[in-house]
């Protein structure tokens, strides 16, 4: 049998990237600023979003897409805060992809939203690899997880626009070296500011809200 070589050169994630581009165009068409929030499970994404909705809800129309492997618990909490929310269950998948977000957009009142948060599946690895159509990527790293994580999970920190060190109220009980954390993040990604905050006490929240206001205005 004759054997021949065929050049292909096709990006493996091209199918995802095409849908992400559609999502981006659609969101931008509605004037929506979209922020993809990533972290490990339990770093405080939902708590941060609830505090953010409380702080900005009066001045900015917020919507949320909640990604989890299973359950509706986070979406229920966000819905109680009075903003439109859609829950995506990945059924075992470790990250959201552009098609899931595309489906979620169908269920959101896009004309009523200025700022859309996508709460990705809790995981420091896979979410960083898949474009969803967002404008900004934000990584959370909570104080109990340890300041060495940027070296262990570099893919998460290399290309994000902002890093939040969360649960700073636990600093007195943990060996978390904030200066070292900043140094490690900067070594990978000098363009991402690091904001330490506690959604629980409110410490540092203003800097995050300021960043968000600028992101929405900058659109």
């Amino acid at each position: 049998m004759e054997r021949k070589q065929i050049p292909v050169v096709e990006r493996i994630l091209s199918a995802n990237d095409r849908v992400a581009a559609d999502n981006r165009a659609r969101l931008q068409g509605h004037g929506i600023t979209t922020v993809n929030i990533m972290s490990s499970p339990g770093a405080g994404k939902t708590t941060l979003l609830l505090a953010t909705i409380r702080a900005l809800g009066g001045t900015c129309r917020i919507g949320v897409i909640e990604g989890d492997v299973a359950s509706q618990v986070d979406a229920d909490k966000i819905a109680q805060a009075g903003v439109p929310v859609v829950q995506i269950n990945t059924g075992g998948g470790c990250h959201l992809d552009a098609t899931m977000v595309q489906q979620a957009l169908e269920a959101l009142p896009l004309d009523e939203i200025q700022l859309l948060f996508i709460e990705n599946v809790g995981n420091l690895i896979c979410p960083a690899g898949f474009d969803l159509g967002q404008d900004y990527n934000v990584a959370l790293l909570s104080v109990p997880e340890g300041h060495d994580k940027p070296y262990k999970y570099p893919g998460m920190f290399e290309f994000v626009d902002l890093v939040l060190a969360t649960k700073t109220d636990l600093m007195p009980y943990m060996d978390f070296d904030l200066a070292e954390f900043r140094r490690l993040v900067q070594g990978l990604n000098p363009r991402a500011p690091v904001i330490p905050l506690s959604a629980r006490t409110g410490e540092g929240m203003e800097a995050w809200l300021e960043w968000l206001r600028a992101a929405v205005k900058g659109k």
Partner: protein
Amino acid sequence: MHELPVTEGILRIAIEHAQKAGASRITDIHLVIGDLAGFVDDSIQFYFDILTPGTLAEGAKLHFHRVATRLRCWECGHEFSPQERDWTCPQCGATGGEVLAGKEFYVESIEIE
């Protein structure tokens, strides 16, 4: 988990091109993967072996061509390959730079019969 949909993507691309060329089977698939792309060869191979029986790609050999990270320093423009994840420019000591190479992730070619 992550590599399953990715491997499905590889298979879809390879089979589409093989069908277009009227192939009876795919013998080899050449992939290019940058060191920053975050995909594991062994894991792709594992899912590939599960997904391919009964397809044009059954028994095909996967070839992984790895591309090292290459950066251009934001401060002085020097191009360098960082050691591990320490993105310090060896020329001026600044951190980080524009990524010139390392994020590649594509099917370069296939071989068919």
